[in-house]
């Protein structure tokens, strides 16, 4: 984005806040990857490496009472919504202190108190769910909104279609985004859709759509702000296509030989953290010393988090049997109305 546009529209503190979360996301996910390679992670390992700007950008654009339905490469959003690195690592290690208490793994973290709808593996399943959350806000006259995401792959599923359509018909306060990182697992876009821009999909619903540079945190943030403002004003949903590139394999076990190396080379230059640093320098908001400081800080935070996670207890076998059904007490503690109102 243009420097003047950025500095006129985004406060210095907000940009620095985003930079911090970009760095924290990277450090945390790098640590998770390293643990995975050491065989210390339970289950699979998907990261947002090289795509951190998307989750950091949109999550920074939210108000406290808003709700997200993240997709599976939105680590930054979890962190910004308040899940601590320690809780994240506990989740990856199957510990009881993770958001799912060991019941579920890795990015399947949900917490209504922090306005996070837990990810479901079945891609796009949470998009209809997000419309329902938005419906609740609209019906109660609250000014809250929902941001809900999917990958390029997920847009092929019927639930994407049904959710987009319903949101448009009822002008629900929801912002949809697609993280278009060129691949769904090994499947390139050309085998997924006969369009070159996923944003074309929005036309089927009479929904406004926009293409945004997903590696530019400022662009993602400002676009999200626009969509969110419209949603909050009762003007209905918007669809954002965040263009980016998946820089690792689908999961860490995948060498991704199907990706042309040139493509990775090209996108490596557009790394969202480097881009953010360039922007901060140009704006005079930060310099190498500052960046180094942040880097050291997040590394320490991640190490402390790992210590927390490792020290945390594993759940015990019989806990399997707990929680299949909710009780009235569970329900009465459920965070549902605006936190400000409560």
């Amino acid at each position, binding site marked *: 984005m243009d420097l003047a546009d950025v500095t006129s529209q985004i406060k210095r503190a907000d940009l620095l806040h985003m930079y911090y979360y970009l760095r924290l996301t990277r450090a945390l996910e790098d640590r998770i990857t390293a643990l995975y390679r050491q065989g210390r992670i339970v289950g699979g390992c998907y990261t947002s490496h090289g795509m951190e700007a998307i989750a950091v950008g949109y999550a920074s654009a939210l108000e406290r009472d808003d709700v997200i339905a993240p997709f599976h490469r939105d680590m930054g959003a979890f962190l910004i919504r308040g899940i601590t690195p320690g809780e994240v690592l506990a989740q990856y290690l199957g510990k009881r202190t993770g958001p799912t208490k060991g019941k579920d793994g890795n990015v399947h973290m949900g917490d209504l108190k922090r306005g996070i*709808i837990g990810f479901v593996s079945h891609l796009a399943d949470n998009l209809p769910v997000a419309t329902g959350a938005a419906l609740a806000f609209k019906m109660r006259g609250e000014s809250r909104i929902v941001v809900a995401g999917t990958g390029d792959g997920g847009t092929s599923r019927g639930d994407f279609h049904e959710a987009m*359509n319903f949101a448009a018909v009822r002008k629900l306060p929801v912002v949809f985004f697609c993280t278009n990182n060129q691949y769904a697992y090994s499947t390139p876009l050309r085998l997924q859709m006969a369009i070159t821009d996923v944003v074309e999909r929005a036309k089927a619903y009479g929904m406004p759509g926009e293409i945004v540079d997903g590696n530019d945190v400022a662009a993602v943030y400002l676009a999200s702000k626009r969509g969110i403002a419209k949603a909050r004003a009762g003007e209905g949903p918007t669809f954002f296509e965040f263009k980016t590139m998946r820089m690792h394999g689908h999961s860490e076990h995948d060498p991704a030989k199907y990706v042309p190396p040139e493509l990775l080379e090209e996108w490596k230059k557009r790394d969202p953290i480097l881009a953010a640093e360039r922007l901060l320098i140009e704006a005079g908001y930060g310099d190498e010393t500052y960046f180094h400081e942040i880097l050291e800080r997040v590394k320490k935070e991640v190490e402390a988090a790992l210590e927390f996670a490792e020290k945390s207890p594993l759940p015990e076998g019989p806990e399997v049997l707990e929680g299949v*059904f*909710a009780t009235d007490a569970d*329900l009465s503690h459920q965070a549902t109305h605006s936190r400000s109102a409560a």
Partner: protein
Amino acid sequence: MTTATSHATGEVTYLEAISQALDEEMMRDERVFLMGEDIGQYGGAFRITEGFLDKYGEWRILDTPLAESGFVGAAIGAAMMGLRPVVEMQFADFISCAFDQITEVAAKNHYRWGAAVPMVIRAPFGGGIHGGPFHSECPEGWFFHSPGLKLVAPSTPYDAKGLLKAAIRDPNPVIYFEHKFLYRRIKATLPTDDYIVPIGKADVKRPGNDISVITYGAMVHLALEAAQMLAKEGIDLEVVDLRTLAPLDKEAIFSSVHKTSKAIVLHEDNKTGGIGAEVAALLAEECFDSLDGPIVRIAAPDTPVPFSTPLEEFFLPKTSDIVAAARKLAAY
């Protein structure tokens, strides 16, 4: 339309009982709202919500696009945010389109990450109305095998009203199987006061000493008919109406069979892998010592529901099937 005060008096049909429950719950709790196809101005395919649109407006009586997965998913989201959605399937058969949302999202959310999903899906099910393979299904067997869901299936207006209210107040996803054949065929006078029928409790619709007939839905009435016929022959059937299909009321099932020592498990759903299989398995596991004869299952054969009248008649379990099975079992 029916109003809260009019609910008090006279006999009501099974259908009206459902309608009353919805209306009273909507008045009692402003979080309750309805979603589905054609439930607004049209009042629903079976006219259960006739007049509701005028009373509650187009947001609480929310006509949806034709997209079962989408609107069940939306109900899940609304439920998590504090509303109490009641979703109508136009016919239970179309619930297959929402299968993924129900089993993977609604059923598992609380277990996985502690988010309760208090919602109800109303599913008008069952045959006997010339509906053919796509308008007569009994889909309860599929959902029975999905931990996290509650399933109920009333057989009387009293239970229909009380179970629907209980379902709406339950903190979990509940599928409410309402039998289309019963809609306008049975009537009862209902209590004037607010009441619920607790989820998880079976009901002995007819006490008896010789054979337990364990059943639910429209089949309860066949079992009662058979019981009446057999009484003349000195065979005394106990008719246990499960009412709640998941979780099963094991105590009630076991205590009936402890008394009678013989069991017929009866349902309209296909035999193989139906809920009757679980009931029979539980008895064979837990009541083996009490059993004085094989456990007999009576159910539809393992085919889709056929359309043509003689086929559907052949397909559906009949009172005479129960009578014949009971005679044989009594003589065992």
